[in-house]
């Protein structure tokens, strides 16, 4: 049958797939596979990056820079004499291989020589940030911020407890006790613990010491624990803050209503009804 086909057509049928077509198809297939793999992979990386309830060793860079810089070697973990630090294992649901600690289990005991920080080969744990006057100073560490749940803290019920206050390595600085009259009994006092954010290092000794079933005082990453008022609020009674006004420029917002005088715009209630 095929013998009867014209010579030219027969040659075309027999001709193998051209190298160029094969190459293009293979390249397209590789790109397709890479795109599919890349999608799954980057989705995973993006999810992992977002886990923010995580306490890092002292001197850690901010979370984003830390994740970028930490090489996951575990030398900080090996340096820690209290086995506080752990490397995130598969199944811990934390960025894999990065160091963290759970203060309720083992808090940071605030070694004055901070063995975990200088061993970091990448600078993800920054010696500068835990030094003052060129000397290591663990009190300048910022691992997180202790937060008190007023509902479950028994000191807020009127029961005397100062476990966290006593456990705090910055005694009477990072946590103070404030006295308040107990109106329910009329003759007792509340001794309420108060955390001071400017001094708290987030070591978690308070969380570790807390006597309630689930800790009523616990350390959260500072970014999670704190709000932000915004730069447009200025504390006029604070000289340093007030200085921010110097050289400030003003910006006037103009709307339809600005064209009228203030009295007119108040009297003209037409728009309201």
């Amino acid at each position, binding site marked *: 049958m095929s013998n009867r086909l014209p010579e030219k057509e027969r040659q075309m049928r027999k001709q193998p797939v051209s190298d160029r077509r094969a190459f293009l198809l293979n390249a397209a297939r590789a790109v397709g596979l*890479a795109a599919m793999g890349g999608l799954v992979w980057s989705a995973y990386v993006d999810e992992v990056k977002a886990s923010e309830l995580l306490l890092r060793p002292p001197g850690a860079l901010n979370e984003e820079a830390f994740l970028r810089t930490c*090489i996951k070697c*575990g*030398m900080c973990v*090996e340096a820690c004499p209290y086995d506080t630090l752990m490397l995130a294992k598969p199944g811990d649901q934390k960025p894999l291989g990065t160091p963290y600690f759970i203060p309720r289990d083992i808090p940071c005991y605030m070694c004055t020589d901070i063995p975990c920080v200088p061993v970091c*080969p*990448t600078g993800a744990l920054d010696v500068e940030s835990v030094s003052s006057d060129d000397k290591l100073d663990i009190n300048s560490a910022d691992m997180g911020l202790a937060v008190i749940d007023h509902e479950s803290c028994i000191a807020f019920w009127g029961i005397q407890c100062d476990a966290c206050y006593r456990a705090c390595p910055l005694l009477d600085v990072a946590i103070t006790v404030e006295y308040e009259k107990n109106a329910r009994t009329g003759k007792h006092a509340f001794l309420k613990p108060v955390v001071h954010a400017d001094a708290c290092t987030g070591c978690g000794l308070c969380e570790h010491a807390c006597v309630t079933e689930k800790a009523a005082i616990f350390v959260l990453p500072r970014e999670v624990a704190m709000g932000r008022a915004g730069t447009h609020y200025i504390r006029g009674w604070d000289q340093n803050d007030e200085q921010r006004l110097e050289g400030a420029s003003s910006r006037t917002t103009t709307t339809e209503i600005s064209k009228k005088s203030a009295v007119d715009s108040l009297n003209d209630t037409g728009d309201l009804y």
Partner: protein
Amino acid sequence: MHRLYNTYRFLILRRLTQIGLLLLYMAGNYWGWTVLMGNLSASSVLGVIPLSDPYAVLQMFAAGAMLSSNILIGAAIITLFYLLIGGRAFCSWVCPVNMITDAANALRRTFEFDKIQKKQPASRHIRYWIIGLSLIISAAFGVAAFEFISPVAMVHRGIIFGIGFGWAAMLVIFLFDLFVLKNGWCGHICPIGGVYSLVGRFSFVRVHHNEAHCTLCMKCKVVCPESQVLHMIGKKSMPVLSGECTNCGRCVEVCDDEALEFSIRKFLEAPASQPLEEKI
């Protein structure tokens, strides 16, 4: 006995090196030995010499991390070391995953799976694609992307610091290599091996084939985890030049005819022999 030693001398040495290094790392964590601290991502020898994984550092660079001098020196030392002794010597002499994939491969041979699955349906270039992809994702998300999913790191870190669900990674690699793809992980996918393949192109330590001694028994090709690098067997006397050779030495030990030996690459000889080949 002597024969047994001859057939397994490099294998025994490799296992000793792999396990020895693991023990030193473990001693670093559990007993505070300072001989070797950290893990394969970055370590410190005696608290003085830094070592770091050049691929991890490359990803960190792509992610835009500030690279400390410590890390750069460490990566330079490792790169230089493998540049001299054969890049993928890391794979067969250091990496703990090698023991898993070698076990899967041995089982494959015992059960003669290769006679059923004759054609391997994947390209050995996948690893280079993964290197490229990892650098793109690292740059896009600002983290070292492969380090978050690396089963090699999971296994090695797991053995030193606590395994968690890392055993699943070990099992999956084992089963993948056993049933899905021959030399699947180490020979096709692992981008760490890919990076060391690129480094190893220029290394000095090479397996050399002497065609005159070869009896074409092909035992070397059967045991070789990267059999494409042995394309010259029985055809031509020359060194194994591909960077994908892991310098494991299995081919050297299984050869009964002294047709394969380790040797130092002779750079000066190479250009002289070039025109000769063309004439033939």
